[in-house]
């Protein structure tokens, strides 16, 4: 029930963000959700793609350092209070969100949140117990292709 997320280190300079995007484009790999964490001198690009192994391979061949982490994807109603509800459920279980990013994917009224936890399995259990829809990566990536 976990997504593989790729993280890339980029220097905070013109054209450095473009490069991995171009590499993936040339390999015919569509970037799905994406987030960029920025610091003064560098950034960390986080990506979710359907074929993460191939994406990792082509990026590494091009000289990028790529890290793989597991993140949890969940679907919420795209409405006022949707996010707050999720966070309440997590707070009750004592699960700290290391970072999160949100994404809509063309289905009206629905949004997807990606969250990174110290212990994703425990967080998934808590979310499911709270009746929150935790996404199955294979099915979701296929459905939204």
């Amino acid at each position: 029930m976990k997504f593989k997320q790729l993280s890339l280190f980029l220097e905070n300079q013109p054209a450095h963000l473009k490069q991995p995007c171009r590499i993936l484009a040339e390999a015919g790999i569509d970037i799905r959700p994406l987030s960029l964490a920025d610091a003064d001198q560098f950034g960390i690009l986080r990506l979710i793609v359907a074929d993460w192994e191939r994406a990792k391979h082509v990026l590494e061949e091009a000289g990028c350092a790529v890290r793989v982490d597991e993140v949890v994807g969940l679907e919420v109603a795209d409405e006022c209070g949707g996010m707050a509800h999720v966070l309440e459920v997590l707070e009750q279980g004592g699960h700290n969100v290391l970072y999160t990013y949100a994404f809509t994917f063309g289905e009206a009224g629905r949004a997807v949140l990606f969250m990174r936890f110290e212990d994703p399995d425990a967080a998934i259990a808590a979310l499911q117990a709270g009746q929150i829809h935790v996404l199955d990566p294979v099915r979701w990536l296929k459905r939204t292709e």
Partner: protein
Amino acid sequence: MHQPGTPTQEQPTFLPRSAPDYLPEPQLRELQLTRLQAIVTRAYERVPLFRERCEQRGVQPSDLRQLADIQHLPFTVKNDLRDTYPFGLFASPREEIVRLHASSGTTGKPIVVAYTQDDLDVWSEVMSRTFAACGVHAGDMVQNAFGYGLFTGGLGAHYGAEELGATVIPISGGNTERQMMVMRDFGVTALCATPSYFLHLLERAREADIDWANLPLRVGIFGAEPWTEAMRQRIEQESGIRAYDIYGLSEIIGPGVGSECCAQDGLHIFEDHFYPEIIDPESGAPLPDGEEGELVLTTLSKQAMPMIRYRTRDLTTIIPERCRCGRTLRRIQRIGRRSDDMFIIRGVNVFPAQVETALLQVEGTLPHYQITLSRKGSLDQMEVAVEVTEAVLSDTVGGMEALQKQVADALEHIIGLRVGVRLVEPQSLPRSEGKAKRVFDNREG
């Protein structure tokens, strides 16, 4: 095939050609004195600059009654070679000189060095003893990636390996693709290169999915730039070969002045041809064995261009104890520091090797680094650029900043200064194919 990191057992072999390595000490000292007297006489008679300086000091070759008397002789420095450019220090007539080499030097004119046929024979001998000390033998396949040409590294190693009876591949530096192809297809067992170039080769071989563990490569002969013990351990662990440090400089002969042996515990100076002293770099006073100072070398047999008390600018110590390999030749500590490489930042003396040591202490950081010096207002700034590898990559900004801090802490611990650390993308620092340029000084004036 031996396991990475575990020393192979190598017994000293008493081949005739290595016999001078094991001369009983009294005999060695006697030989040195005889040769010293002869070479100083030669230089006095044939090199005007040397004679002039001796006369100023009121010393004559006949004053040399024991080895310790060498301290009364004048020093030779690199600028003497520049000032007498190109042929002013030659002690042989032009027609006896069969080879010239030159070192580019970063400033001004190059320095030119000369060899008679006898000098070339000595050079081949000491380089062949170097290879033997590093466990290379007749029948080995030696890939010589030291640069051929005016630089002494390529040809020095070349003739030494041939003298030993090894097969030499004179590939010279550069063209990494071809280096990898030759290494694999020719069954290379020993490689001569700079340590930074070897790391580059290793990286590229990994990218090219070369099955490194199954290559017959056994020995690396590394020189031409200072490297640290930590770097050696990294190289040996990652490549499974034994990495040896060799020492030499064009002014003296080229490579072949000194070499590690199977003990990998200091470099034996080929004392029957090169007489080492350690001096206080400030006062010039001789220091006893065991104390650190500047290495000074005298060529004991070089005909075309005798160097008397040449100041190398390399900082080291003569190790007083006898080596467990059995050689009677004295050893110097491996040279991590050259007084030329040192730079001063905010009043603190810093050597690039200290930066390397600090980086190797932080798990997962590659020894590829670059130091940039700049001036902000009146304050000197030092920034170390370090490549981010998969091993240290975090998916959070906090994680990367923690790495930055870890590197800055390690640097501060070793050099005593808080300096800037910039994380850069993998493979973004230039890879050298010869001597790595680590320091970029952009300070004006």
